[in-house]
């Protein structure tokens, strides 16, 4: 057993209102420099839709993630030898057309234009070439709120796959929001794709980072990440990606996207996992088993054996305690209401999603007489087809989604019953049995999902910077890892660090 700690996130999609505050604050914090204009470390997609970049889920085209070949786990785009053969031209890489040409507006014209009959306008201007763009045709959220209509929705790879289940007739349309950041996977394919070894997973907290000094701009991470969350900076010719706001999490603060989330949909916490089991878990034959096998790598933070091993691995008391209080452990591992995004990519992603409930399609005619168990068939009549959710969160296993939705429904019925009566009836109900839960658990869930305060939603131990070896030297230095320039030759040849 080799215990490692991982900082992870859960997003409760029921509460996402699609306001993009997370994207905007993230952008203002990290990607407002030349070369990063098109990078959205955090973006919110309207589903069904093409996502960002366009059709990123089309793994047949971009060849991201892992695949099983003769029972062995392999990068879908090919191993090191084939990468080196393709190093002069990456056939799988997305280009600016798949993202968009970022632009700004010529605001100056509003003030400086001479007197004329018509109102002055601020024309869109490409930030890549400086040329005016007469008609911007695509952007990161061009199809927000289904505004691309059937034309764009039909390009969603998931919709293409599920044509039989999804019809985009007006009465049957559905939508949901899907905020995405880097998954900080347990088995990251971007790391394995990097010829220079510049991408790495941090031992302390599992955050996947790009070493800007080691990156040589070979770009295999861009297509190697099936979530398309590694970006190429055209200005520095290096890769950049979501860094889970590590300067904040090291200080015990949530990421900026979580901090500013209006709907408070995000939860951050620590989970302990067994690094020795990762490869095996990612190599199970049936993609539908990947969800369960991923769950099996996480360790119970209350188990004395696990605690002993964790301490042996250098994980301190504060981190173990945080793992015990972790909202992620509760939601994803204990209650099993949070699911990984696209487990079939075999990267064991660590940003989990509580699937959204949605209105029931058919009218319930006699609502007053509806007994508790009447909610069970309702699960299958929700506006968002279970198949759609299954396709993005459980490798098409609708049973997994049904279970979660049942539990969330049971929670609502129970909490409703507490206020308007019917709680005894609920205790005997088929719904409670089928949801495989207890009223106590449901109340815990309701508390965490509904009313949890800041400190319950974000249980983040600090980065133990006090353990750094040379704090006196660090005094007044840049807090970002090695961003401050080295002080002369001495620091290069081992000197002061």
């Amino acid at each position, binding site marked *: 057993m080799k215990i490692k700690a991982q900082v992870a996130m859960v997003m409760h999609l029921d509460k996402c209102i699609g306001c993009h505050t997370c994207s905007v604050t993230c952008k203002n914090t990290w990607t407002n420099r030349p070369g990063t204009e098109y990078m959205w470390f955090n973006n919110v997609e309207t589903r069904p839709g093409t996502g960002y970049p366009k059709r990123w889920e089309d793994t047949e085209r971009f060849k991201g993630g892992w695949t099983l070949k003769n029972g062995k786990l392999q*990068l879908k785009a090919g191993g*090191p*030898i084939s*990468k*080196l053969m393709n*190093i*002069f*031209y*990456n*056939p799988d*890489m997305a*280009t*600016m057309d798949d993202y968009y*040409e970022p632009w700004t507006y010529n605001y100056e014209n509003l003030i400086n234009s001479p007197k004329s009959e018509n109102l002055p306008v601020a024309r869109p201007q490409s930030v*890549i*070439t*400086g*040329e005016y763009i007469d008609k911007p045709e695509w952007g990161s959220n061009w199809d927000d709120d289904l505004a691309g209509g059937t034309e764009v929705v039909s390009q969603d790879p998931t919709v293409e796959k599920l044509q039989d289940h999804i019809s985009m007739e007006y009465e049957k349309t559905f939508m949901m929001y899907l905020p995405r950041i880097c998954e900080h996977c347990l*088995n*990251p394919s971007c*790391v*394995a794709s*990097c*010829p*220079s*070894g510049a*991408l*790495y*997973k*941090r*031992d*302390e907290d599992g955050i996947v980072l790009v*070493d*800007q*000094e080691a*990156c*040589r*701009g*070979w*770009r295999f991470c861009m297509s190697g990440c099936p979530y398309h969350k590694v970006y*190429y900076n*055209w*200005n*520095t*010719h*290096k890769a950049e990606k979501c860094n889970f706001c590590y300067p904040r999490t090291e200080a015990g603060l949530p990421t900026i996207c979580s901090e500013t989330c209006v709907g408070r949909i995000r939860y951050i916490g620590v989970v302990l996992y067994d690094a020795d089991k*990762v490869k095996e878990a990612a190599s199970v034959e049936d993609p539908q088993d990947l969800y369960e096998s991923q769950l099996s790598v996480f360790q119970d933070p209350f188990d004395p054996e696990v605690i002993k091993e964790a301490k042996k691995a250098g994980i301190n008391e504060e981190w173990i305690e945080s793992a015990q209080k972790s909202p992620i452990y509760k939601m994803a591992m204990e209650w099993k209401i949070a699911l990984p995004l696209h487990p079939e990519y075999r990267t064991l992603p660590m940003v989990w999603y509580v699937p959204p409930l949605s209105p029931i399609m058919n009218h319930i005619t006699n609502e007053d007489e509806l007994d508790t168990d009447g909610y069970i068939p309702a699960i299958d009549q929700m506006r968002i087809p279970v198949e759609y959710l299954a396709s993005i969160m459980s490798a098409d296993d609708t049973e997994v989604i049904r279970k979660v939705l049942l539990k969330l429904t049971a929670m609502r019925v129970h909490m409703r019953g507490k206020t308007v009566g019917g709680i005894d009836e609920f205790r005997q109900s088929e719904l409670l049995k089928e949801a495989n839960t207890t009223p106590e658990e449901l109340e815990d869930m309701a508390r965490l999902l509904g009313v949890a305060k800041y400190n319950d939603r974000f249980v983040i131990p600090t*980065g133990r910077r006090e353990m*750094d*070896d040379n704090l006196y030297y660090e005094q007044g230095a840049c807090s970002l*890892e*090695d961003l401050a320039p*080295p002080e002369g*030759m001495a*620091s*290069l040849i*081992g*000197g002061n*660090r």
Partner: protein
Amino acid sequence: MSDIFWWVIFPYASLTIMILGLLYRFAFRQLTWAAPSTEFFEKKWLRFGSPLFHWGIIFAFFGHIMGIVIPMSFYDAIGVSDDLYHMGAVYGGSLAGIVMVAGLIILLIRKIVFDPVRVHATFADFYSVIALLVIAAIGTYITVFGNFTPEEFDYRTAIGPWFRSLFILNPQYELMTNIPFIFKLHTLLAFGLFASIPFTRLIHFYSIPVAYTTRAPQQYRSRAQYKKRSS
């Protein structure tokens, strides 16, 4: 006197600038050390231009090793006749040269034609593509139309020994005095290019990621180790 300048001082100065420049850039400008890809902007032309050029230059590189670095006596020892060698050199070299020149022309056109690529191309970028194109074109011309039979001019009797003599610090510049002008031009331009490598994006040639084939797929780094690595 001018022979000493061109065939002793100039090559040594070029190599010195290259080595010191590389060391400086590696030590202090690590953040700028990368392959300068513009694939993000344009990939239809790159798909042909880049592999053609790169594979061409790789074969040309090994061709130069075979022709300039490995002495004639070695070929005699393993029983490769002059005719056999020249046949290989002419056919192989011509193919590599033509492929490389074709690739460079595609890349140069691409650099000029596509707005995002052109706007972000620096002087150094144009310089390195054009310099490579000129040098490669001369080299290809020599290979395709040249005559290397011992009766005419065999570079293995002059340029090869001179090149090797540079590295044993005993430069025999007199070997280069009477070679055809076009060979002189090719050689001098190449040394000029070497000197400019640290100031262009050609530096990525020095970071061929061979270690990738042997390393573990997953990389973990702890903050403590990380500091040790980078200090």
